[in-house]
């Protein structure tokens, strides 16, 4: 025993010694120091015994940035979906708006969004409002290790930033679809900037920023309410002020304004589905195998269930297998699972998605009935299903139903009022709607002097 013990200690000795001098001489003798060297130093510096945790930290960080890229591609999804479900004479305008949104969304998030979304200790109104300044060097002061947020966050400061930044623009994109084909470009540019810079981040701080919603135990895993619901409610307010597209609601009933390209719409929905794996999966905030697998599974099953149930619903209610409804159904399923993806069973996720798929069809038809004109169904998909998805966590995910309801009310009302006021102010100052002349001619020519298609 003693003999063996000595032998072990010897081994151990070599190990620690080698590690200790790694920065001077590479482990497997060779001249130039590389990433693995540096990495070993990092591990050493935080105590060799934390190696496994440290590796986990690294894996989780990798997943975080990959997830950020997946969320980014959702913006292409939105751009193509919105283009596909609107008229070709407004396509340049829609694509332009989406370029604007992702750009301004990322910039404003760096300038003030991130620190307003996560005020940490600097609230103006504790738990309610904490508007703060730009990000600094997030790699400084251990922000590039688990020094950032201690062991409670398995990512670096920049990882946290870029992942959240990709979310930010989403709210504005949702509105973009609902107000399409008649909104004034410059007005939308101003509106969307204010919405992503302040509206989204303030509401977000209530929950993810550790504000009052997190205190009351509101549960919204990846943002059925704080992302999608916020966007849907904001869109509703904007549409109410903006009014429907010319010729949509006539004396003799609803005159559908048909989307110009179903392939574009389908590309959009599949890309959104794809990106959603980063949206929900990344919200695990680590590469923890258990939750990660569950989230991917519930997300995919809910989307599938939403697709099937919306198909059946459209066949029964509309007597036709309506592609645009099937596409919205997939999204409805995704929004419906977003709040509880990590806390419900696969079976529950199928139920949640399926119900979402039914809800979205009726919501779209209903909104049309009451003359709320939403060209792409954004209010129904994100707003209506956002409510359902959040409540559903109270039913299937063990969250407190009352907290869920309070959370929905809080965020939706704020989003609606905030959006309503901002949009109204813009209306009185610069106007929000193009002239009927410009509208019938199409925004591409009237706003951009460009056409989307030039088949020769």
């Amino acid at each position, binding site marked *: 025993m003693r003999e063996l013990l000595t032998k072990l200690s010897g081994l151990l000795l070599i190990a620690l010694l080698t590690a200790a001098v790694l920065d001077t001489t590479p482990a497997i003798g060779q001249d130039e120091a590389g990433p693995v060297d540096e990495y070993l130093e990092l591990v050493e510096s935080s105590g060799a015994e934390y190696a496994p945790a440290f590796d986990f930290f690294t894996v989780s960080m990798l997943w975080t940035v990959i997830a950020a890229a997946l969320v980014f591609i959702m913006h292409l999804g939105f751009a193509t979906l919105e283009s596909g479900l609107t008229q070709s004479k407004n396509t340049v305008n829609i694509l332009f708006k989406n370029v604007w949104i992702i750009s301004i969304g990322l910039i404003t998030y760096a300038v003030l969004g991130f620190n307003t979304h996560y005020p940490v200790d600097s609230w103006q109104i504790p738990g309610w409002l904490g508007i703060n300044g730009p990000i600094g060097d997030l790699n400084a002061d251990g922000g590039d290790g688990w020094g950032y947020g201690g062991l409670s966050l398995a990512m670096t400061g920049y990882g946290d930033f870029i992942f959240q930044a990709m979310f930010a623009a989403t709210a504005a994109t949702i509105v973009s679809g609902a107000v399409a084909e008649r909104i004034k470009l410059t007005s939308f540019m101003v509106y969307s900037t204010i919405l992503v810079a302040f509206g989204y981040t303030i509401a977000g701080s209530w929950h993810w920023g550790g504000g009052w919603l997190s205190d009351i135990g509101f549960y919204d895993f990846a943002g059925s309410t704080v992302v999608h619901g916020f966007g849907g409610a904001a869109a509703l307010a904007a549409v109410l002020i903006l009014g429907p597209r010319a010729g949509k609601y006539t004396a003799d009933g609803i*005159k*559908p304004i048909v989307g110009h390209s179903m392939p574009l719409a389908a590309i959009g929905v599949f890309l959104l589905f794809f990106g959603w794996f980063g949206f929900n999966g990344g919200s695990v905030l680590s590469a923890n195998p258990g939750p990660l697998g569950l989230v991917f599974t519930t997300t995919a099953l809910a989307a599938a269930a939403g697709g099937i149930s919306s198909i059946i619903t459209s066949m029964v*209610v*509309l007597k036709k297998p*309506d592609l645009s409804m099937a596409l919205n159904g997939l999204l409805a399923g995704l929004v419906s699972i977003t709040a509880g993806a990590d806390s419900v069973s696969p079976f529950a996720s199928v139920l949640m998605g399926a119900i979402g798929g039914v809800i979205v069809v009726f919501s*779209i*038809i209903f909104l*049309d009935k009451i003359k709320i004109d939403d060209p792409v169904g954004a209010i129904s998909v994100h707003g209506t299903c956002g409510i359902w998805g959040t409540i559903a966590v109270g039913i299937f995910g063990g969250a407190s139903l009352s907290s869920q309801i309070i959370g929905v009310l809080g965020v939706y009302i704020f989003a609606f009022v905030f959006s309503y006021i901002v949009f109204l102010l813009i209306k009185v100052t610069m106007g929000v709607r193009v002239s009927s002349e410009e509208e019938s001619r199409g925004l591409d020519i009237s706003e951009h002097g460009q056409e989307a298609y030039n088949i020769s």
Partner: protein
Amino acid sequence: MKLVVAIIKPFKLEEVKESLSEVGIEGMTVTEVKGFGRQKGHTEIYRGSEYTVDFLPKVKIEIAVQDDAVTVAAQAIAKSAKTGKIGDGKVFVLPLEDAIRIRTDESGESAL
């Protein structure tokens, strides 16, 4: 000379073209048009609301011919374009005062 104008069902174009060349007519100009008449359109549905598409896709054929060729042409078209179902279309005959072949400046019947 006359200008024979026919409105037919799109999928009949090939047949009409062939039966025309059988009677020696090699030149024509074709346009995609939309037709409206006895044949009613169909109803489509989009995101929950129905609407009717009145106009049906048709093809317009314009053929300039000598006076004596009019009946042959018209018959050839009528025969080959017929399905007997409503919506088969029409053949119109218009007077044509002059024709010029741009390439050669020939004019009159020789231009056809």
